[in-house]
């Protein structure tokens, strides 16, 4: 055990058990998985991506490239989880990954031996011969070796929530700067959101031993947090990471609601996606320490100095017995001091900066002007140090802490395209032009000392509150302990032994970058892509700046000339499930149910999706052997008796106003201003490009009022189109329009007995042909409820549609069934509806496919020549009037028994099945009980001239080839006797 007996912010009264790679360990509340592993002397935690090199913990934060584990098991397994950000819970189970058979002995480490061959981009140069082996051999090998952890393959069992937030000020990061900013703005009365990716507020104050107002910094943090919690306008979101900035001050953030638990509590979401609109934002996300580039810098035991500091101070977990420091930054000296204070032996402090001595470190061997040139041991045992004079010595150390300076964590600040610029003052990139409304504070702004950080926060917080009209007194600036922040440029030790890693996870070394430059990949973007640098799960947080420095060096440029890389969302990887939230599986999209849905369920309906609607597809009866039998029975019932169909899903739009008729004349190819009140008419509307948009019937309810129907699929599009026409094209017209689809439940009553059925229901109504002919419409009442009756027919039979307000739809359909009982009224679904309409040659979705003209579908005669309407001019273009175009016709198998297939193509008889002979395709097919065989509608080149000809319906996918006769698309009652009956 390497746990200090006292100190740290862990709760020793709450011991926790956990399991890593099958072994049991103990930790405490307040631990991360990483700190608990350190406390248990577990030093090997992962394998690198490419060479499968053994790796230990590098950091103590979200930037961790090495310690990726699969957390939990079964369906909750979560691959590639950073041990450094996993809060320990009792019973936690984690496994190392990307190794086989075990972490200690990984056969894939053979890749490391091949590393002289496996340099950056090697795969572009080989594996080309023979071509067939790529998918069969090379690629499967590469794929198996690549990847990191594995998904469980089972559906994610957890739920995800979404939330929206609005605030005056969004503070990202609750370190000293963020806390100060939130406090200043919060006290002034501003609405503040404070986001902290950890559970504990305080940031660096939790890991460092600085004092504020004479007391430990973490106590100051706790007091500020307590005060903020009590302010009603301040919202603190813990375990929440802002992952992206979007347009107009919108932010995305992810709250890990239950990730610190073994599993979410009942009803509790695992995570919550926040979409936040913030008038002002203060980015106070701190800074990330950068590694030093020297040979062997990836050996387990080589860690970031700030991580060592955090493990020792915050978690009381000491990663080694003898710790050496390699630092180019004053912060490394502070770590040495902290280690000494904790009683840990410091083997050496090596600082290549000549003469740097920010503080006195008695009893620490100092190597001013020295460098580390090598590391040794499978797990680190010793290091080679070249002293200022050039003498190389071997120093025993089981941990080497690197402190290569700090890079501001301004990632999301670049999301909108602001380019970071190089600062010679801090030897890193800073953001000078953050997105609108955003300010940076503290380390994120490149100001690293504690006093600067808190000062920044207070100032920016006050300024943001004042901008929002909240005036107040700034909280007094606290006294802070001394904190030096001197630093050197990114440091590379040339000519050391072993590889110097830049990107630890993707195994990109200094020599890979040199090779990339040699081969002409000198743009930083080319470098990234060629070497895969920065593309690992850590998104280059520890590698990007060092890579820039090397790129500049190898290409002989100054670092400012080497270009910059923008960071794009997400700042940290975010679970895909969180973006989907509630809308997954069966909840992907809402379901729309008609008023008669319950009735249809009772009738044994099978349902089909029509957009978001559930429509009854057919109503099987006991004893029926298959859907074809059921559907044929339903269709026959309509042709011979009476059937009932729920047509409520058709789009319904009401137009009112003095100019409603004028607008309709411009919307449709035919005229509606001439329609008589109480009459309906079929209409076709085009897009402005001359292609059919939709069709339906329109009824004139009053002089200034029309009721039009659309296809189910196009309801929203037509409504939008009408609004476009009346608001943009012709705003001078007096027309009001609204969707009434949901107001009216509507049922088709179709068949020769439909009039009798209606007469039972509405005995007072004169439904005779004379009083109520085909295409008549009337408004009446039924049991005190408004009812609309239309004599419309999609089936070609004598038929009516009845509409009542949807709250009475269920009552109406039941009343219709009751009235129809003596007539054996038969409910029919969309499938029989399809049979009936195909028998009549009515175009529907498969024909209104966005590629057909009115003339293609046989409506050429309806196109008015006496008025302008949308699509008129473009419909006359040569390509749309070409006599060679496929047009709507009917087809029947010549043998009268073969089955037809939708989507089959039409080819002449006696020619090979090649595209040159393709003349059209089958759009819709049905088994017609009336014709006692399969029939179809098709679009065939010059089809109307070819009635009686034989062609073949060829379905190569399903291997059928049926000789068909070309016929009129109207199979049943072409004279229309039935529907006028």
């Amino acid at each position, binding site marked *: 055990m390497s746990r200090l007996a006292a100190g740290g912010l862990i709760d020793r009264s709450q011991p926790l058990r956990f399991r890593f790679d099958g072994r049991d360990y103990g930790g405490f509340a307040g631990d991360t998985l990483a700190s608990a592993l350190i406390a248990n002397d577990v030093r090997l935690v992962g394998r690198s991506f490419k060479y499968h090199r053994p790796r230990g913990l590098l950091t103590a934060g979200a930037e961790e490239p090495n310690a990726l584990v699969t957390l939990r098991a079964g369906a909750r397994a979560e691959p590639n989880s950073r041990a450094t950000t996993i809060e320990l819970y009792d019973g936690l189970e984690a496994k190392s990954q990307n190794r086989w058979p075990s972490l200690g002995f990984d056969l894939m480490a053979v890749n490391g031996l091949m590393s002289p061959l496996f340099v950056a981009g090697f795969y572009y140069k080989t594996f080309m011969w023979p071509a067939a082996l790529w998918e069969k051999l090379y690629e499967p090998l590469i794929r198996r070796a690549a990847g990191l952890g594995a998904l469980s393959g089972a559906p994610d069992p957890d739920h995800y*929530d979404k939330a929206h937030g*609005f605030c005056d000020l969004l503070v990202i990061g609750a370190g000293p700067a963020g806390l100060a900013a939130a406090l200043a703005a919060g006290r002034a009365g501003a609405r503040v959101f404070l986001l902290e990716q950890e559970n504990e507020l305080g940031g660096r104050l939790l890991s460092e031993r600085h004092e504020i107002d004479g007391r430990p910094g973490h106590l100051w943090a706790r007091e500020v947090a307590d005060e903020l919690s009590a302010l009603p306008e301040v919202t603190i979101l813990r375990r929440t990471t802002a992952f992206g900035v979007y347009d107009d001050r919108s932010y995305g953030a992810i709250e890990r609601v239950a990730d610190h638990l073994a599993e979410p509590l009942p009803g509790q979401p695992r995570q919550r996606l926040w979409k936040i609109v913030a008038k002002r934002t203060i980015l106070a996300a701190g800074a990330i320490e950068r590694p030093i580039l020297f040979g062997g810098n990836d050996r387990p035991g080589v860690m970031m100095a700030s991580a060592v500091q955090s493990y020792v101070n915050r978690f009381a977990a000491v990663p080694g017995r003898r710790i050496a420091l390699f630092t180019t930054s004053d912060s490394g000296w502070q770590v040495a001091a902290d280690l000494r204070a904790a009683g840990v032996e410091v083997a050496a402090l090596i600082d290549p900066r000549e003469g740097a001595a920010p503080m006195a470190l008695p009893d620490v061997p100092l190597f001013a002007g020295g460098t580390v040139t090598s590391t040794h041991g499978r797990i680190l045992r010793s290091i080679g140090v070249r002293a200022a004079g050039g003498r190389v010595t071997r120093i025993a150390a089981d941990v080497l802490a690197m402190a290569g300076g700090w890079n501001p964590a301004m990632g999301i600040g670049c999301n909108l395209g602001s380019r970071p610029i190089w600062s010679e003052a801090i030897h890193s990139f800073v953001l000078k032009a953050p997105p609108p409304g955003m300010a940076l504070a503290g380390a994120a702004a490149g100001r690293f000392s504690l006093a600067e950080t808190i000062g920044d926060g207070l100032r920016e917080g006050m300024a943001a509150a004042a901008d929002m009209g909240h005036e107040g007194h700034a909280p007094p600036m606290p006294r802070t302990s001394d904190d030096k922040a001197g630093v050197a440029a990114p440091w590379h030790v040339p000519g050391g032994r072993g590889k110097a890693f830049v990107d630890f996870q993707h195994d990109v070394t200094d020599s890979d970058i040199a090779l990339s430059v040699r081969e002409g990949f000198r743009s930083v973007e080319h470098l990234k892509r060629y070497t895969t640098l920065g593309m690992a799960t850590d998104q280059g947080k520890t590698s990007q700046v060092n890579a820039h420095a090397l790129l500049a060096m190898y290409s002989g440029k100054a670092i400012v000339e080497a270009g910059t890389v923008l960071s794009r969302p997400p700042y940290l990887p975010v679970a895909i499930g969180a973006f989907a939230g509630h809308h997954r599986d069966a909840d992907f999209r809402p379901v729309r149910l008609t008023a008669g849905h319950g009735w249809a369920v009772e009738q044994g309906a099978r349902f089909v999706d029509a957009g978001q609607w559930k429509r009854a597809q057919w109503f099987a009866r006991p004893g029926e052997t298959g859907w074809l039998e059921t559907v044929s029975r339903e269709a026959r019932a309509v042709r011979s008796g009476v059937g009932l169909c729920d047509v409520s899903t058709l789009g319904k739009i009401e137009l009112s106003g*003095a100019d409603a008729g004028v607008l309709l004349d411009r919307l449709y190819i035919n005229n509606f201003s001439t329609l008589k009140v109480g009459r309906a008419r079929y209409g076709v509307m085009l897009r402005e490009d001359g292609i059919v948009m939709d069709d339906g019937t329109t009824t004139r309810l009053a002089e200034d009022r029309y009721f039009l129907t659309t296809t189910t699929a196009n309801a929203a599009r037509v409504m939008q189109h009408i609004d476009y026409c009346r608001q943009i094209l012709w705003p001078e017209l007096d027309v*009001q329009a*609204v969707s*009434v689809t*949901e107001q009216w439940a509507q049922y088709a009553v179709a068949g020769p007995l439909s009039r009798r059925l209606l007469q039972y229901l509405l005995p007072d109504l004169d439904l005779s042909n004379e009083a109520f002919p085909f295409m008549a419409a009337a408004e009446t009442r039924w049991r005190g409820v408004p009812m609309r009756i239309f004599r419309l027919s999609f089936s070609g039979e004598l038929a009516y549609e009845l509409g009542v307000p949807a709250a*009475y739809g*269920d009552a109406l359909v039941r009343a219709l069934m009751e009235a129809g009982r003596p007539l054996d009224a038969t409910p029919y679904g969309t499938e029989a509806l399809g049979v009936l309409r195909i028998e009549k040659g009515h175009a529907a979705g498969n024909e209104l496919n966005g590629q057909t003209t009115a003339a293609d579908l046989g409506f050429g005669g309806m196109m008015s020549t006496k008025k302008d309407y949308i699509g008129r001019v473009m419909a006359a273009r040569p390509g749309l009037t070409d006599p060679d175009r496929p047009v709507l016709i009917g087809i029947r198998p010549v043998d009268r028994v073969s089955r037809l297939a939708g989507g089959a193509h039409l080819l002449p008889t006696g020619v090979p099945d090649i595209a040159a002979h393709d003349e059209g395709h089958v759009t819709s097919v049905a088994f017609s009980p009336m014709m006692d065989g399969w029939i179809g509608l098709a679009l065939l080149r010059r089809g109307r001239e070819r009635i009686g000809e034989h062609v073949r319906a060829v379905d190569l996918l399903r291997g059928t080839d049926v000789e068909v006769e070309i016929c009129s698309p109207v199979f049943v009652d072409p004279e229309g006797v039935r529907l006028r009956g």
Partner: protein
Amino acid sequence: MADLFLPAEGAFAPFLETLSPSGNGRLVLSEPPARGIATVMARAGQGAALATRMKALYGIDVEDAARFVTAGDVALVGTGPGAWLMLREGAAPDWAAQPAGELDGLASVFDQSSGYAVLRLGGAGAATLLSRGAFIDMHPRAFPVGAAAVTVMSHIGAILWQREAAVYEVAIFRSYAASFWHWIAATAAANGLTPMRSA
């Protein structure tokens, strides 16, 4: 058959029945008593005359804004420029003919009494729940009593308004009632709210 009014069927009734009754929970759900709902849209250039007529007829101060205003048994929810939902308490199924006649020439009136399902949400958690679905600032300063909005929640178009302190109503198209309810239930649970039925 005589004019025997059928009882309208509340779209949320079957779901509400599954809840426990409560007087003062953090999230209390109910379906308002059956009422007439109509879309009222001003005729071209008749906005001012329409406001005057409605004031005279119903005593209501018409606002051409996203607001909920009420007077007696009539309420208006602004849904767009020159457009409102008119709510009429205790209206008969054929009620809309009356305002249509009264406002003839000044507005087009479209009955939507059946088209919308309305859910009433009360309690301290109601605003939180709504803000989970609507990307609208539900802070009492931003969305006070009398505020209204046409928006979308959980892929379902919704009109919502605050009729009195911490009492909101949401109107959605009727066919979505089951999906909307499912979302309400899941989201309430995800936010530690136990929906109760108003006693």
